[in-house]
């Protein structure tokens, strides 16, 4: 592969320290960026084709371009609320190369003309928060942050804001509400945060990995970044592999690499007697792939979409033969039932109903019409809520029911048999 962009310092001792970062070529590019007009920095990122790494895959430069001309404050909010099941990539950046993120923040704030950045970090990442805060303190002491960044007469403050356990705060408007001291209820859009965001001001919300990609783009140029990857899926990506692989872990690959290559890097399946059965490729919120589909797919936005799923947060959950997919789906949907914020009725009720029915199937106590009821509930959730949490449960549910239909029918048959046995007892 091409040189690693995000993980190049991960194995280096003391990689979280400023001195190590500088020794390894960090904190060099921000001076180049600060010597450029902000618009030109935005242009480089547009040219790079960088897309948001939090899950939506929206072009980053275009997002920045939506900021209106304004006299108001502009905020950058870095989304470090990594909570999508199967995803752990941002934790590596926060723990092992926080200065890459902070340098990306400096360049991004310069580009979008912001002097106020918040990093919203999930409460469970307390160890990572301490590492990040120590790195920010170092950057302040070195004059890379503060009232006069690098003597340029430009102020930049970075504040770490700690969440308190709520998946929904990773949704960008839920994040803004939480930062404002409220329940993390997502907002109706439009207006989008770029126009009305934090404290009513224009706000850019970007994922940790997105911002950490920015220094390389400015150092080497947008075109060099766009030359990596395939088509509209440019650059490299951190892939999180977990589940039944021999060596679960994090791998940086250029977008477009085959899934089979990633599986090989993970040492293949953990048990040779249990071949691959299924892969959830983008965190639990995306449709599942069968083994055959996964082994044929390349890991980029377009190829995964063509295969009927999504790249999402690149959290690949690998499932071996012999796994009960009814139970897998029950566990998967429990998360959405737990994490629905409760604001929209279809989601608040639907996630719990679907989850309850799936556990009834697991336990053999389902009613004959329960599978139809799941389909009906899904129809009443998809696209009918303020944010996409409901959709994020519906899409995997439908894909499981379709691709592993015989297992769900067998579970239903067990329930019927139990009812019959109880009736005739």
């Amino acid at each position, binding site marked *: 592969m091409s040189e690693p962009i995000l993980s190049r310092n991960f194995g280096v001792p003391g990689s979280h320290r400023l001195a190590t970062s500088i020794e390894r070529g960090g904190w060099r590019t921000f001076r180049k960026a600060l010597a450029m007009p902000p618009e030109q920095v935005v242009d480089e990122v547009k040219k790079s084709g960088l897309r948001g790494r939090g899950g939506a895959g929206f072009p980053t430069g275009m997002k920045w371009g939506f900021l209106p001309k304004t006299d108001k*404050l502009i905020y950058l909010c870095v989304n470090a609320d*990594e*909570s*999508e*099941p*199967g*995803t*752990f990539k941002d*934790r590596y950046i926060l723990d092992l190369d926080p200065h890459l993120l902070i340098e990306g923040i400096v360049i991004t704030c310069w580009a979008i003309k912001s002097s*106020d950045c*918040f990093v919203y970090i*999930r*409460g*469970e*990442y*307390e*160890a990572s*928060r*301490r590492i990040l*805060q120590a790195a920010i*303190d170092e950057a302040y002491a070195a004059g890379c942050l503060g009232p006069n960044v690098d003597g340029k007469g430009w102020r930049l*403050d970075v*504040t*770490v*804001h*700690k*969440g*308190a*356990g*709520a*998946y929904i705060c990773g949704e960008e408007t839920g994040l803004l509400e*939480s930062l*404002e*001291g*409220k*329940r*993390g209820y997502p907002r109706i859009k439009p207006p989008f945060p770029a126009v009305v965001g934090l*404290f009513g*001001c224009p706000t850019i919300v970007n994922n940790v990995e997105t911002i950490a990609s920015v220094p390389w783009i400015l150092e080497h140029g947008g075109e060099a970044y766009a030359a990596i990857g395939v088509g509209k899926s440019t650059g490299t990506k951190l892939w*999180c592999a*977990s*589940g*039944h692989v021999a060596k*679960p*872990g*994090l791998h940086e690959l250029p977008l477009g690499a085959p899934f089979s290559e990633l599986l090989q890097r993970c040492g293949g399946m953990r048990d040779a007697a249990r071949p691959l059965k299924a892969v*959830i490729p983008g965190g*639990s919120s995306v449709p599942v792939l069968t083994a055959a589909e996964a082994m044929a797919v390349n890991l980029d936005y377009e190829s995964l979409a063509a295969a009927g799923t999504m790249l999402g947060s690149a*959290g690949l*959950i690998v*499932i071996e033969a012999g*796994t009960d997919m009814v139970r*897998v789906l029950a*566990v*998967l949907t*429990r*998360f959405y039932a*737990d*994490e629905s*914020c409760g604001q929209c009725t279809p989601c608040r009720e639907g996630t719990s109903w679907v989850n309850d029915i799936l556990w009834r199937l697991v336990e053999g106590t389902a009613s004959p019409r329960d599978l139809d009821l799941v389909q009906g509930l899904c129809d009443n959730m998809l696209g009918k809520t303020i944010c996409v949490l409901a959709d994020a449960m519906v899409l995997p549910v439908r894909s499981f029911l379709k691709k592993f239909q015989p297992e769900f029918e067998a579970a239903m048959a067990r329930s019927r048999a139990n009812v019959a046995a109880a009736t005739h007892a």
Partner: protein
Amino acid sequence: MTSQTPESGTVAHGTAADGAAHRLSPAAIATLERLAPRYANREALLLPALWLVQDAYGWISEAAMQHVAEVVGVSPVRVLSVVTFYHMYHEHPPGRYNVQVCHNLSCSLLGAEDLLERLQARFGVGVNTPTPDGRFMIQRVECLGACEHAPVCQVNEDFVFDLTPAKLEAHLDQLP
């Protein structure tokens, strides 16, 4: 703006009755006031203020919520609505060691349910209930973002990776 969080395991949790006296300390108030200029209004100090309370006492009593409401200038019911929304804020005294076992997909595929059953058998309590000596509480939690080390748990703020029943038991046995 350095961390005000004490090292885990050092917090004296006390009992529900102690909660009536819970207040932000002068040092905690000073920390909040240092943060205040970063935010456009005081309401936004609510989550940081609640963390300062929980870091000091291990949980957030009703009296502490009323105190926080005064400090950040919102109604007590607003504070309550926020405390009850976020999973990590405790409205009741938890165990001295909060054993938070992830039960999400990657951990579940590799044995999380077995761990949870064994923990409940060991302590003789269900989830979210402190042991009678107040030492442990078991919680089921959602994805902790460490799936490459599944199954995982956090004991207070510290991850314990690549769990087996024996490894978890040994970890709990050596806690001070």
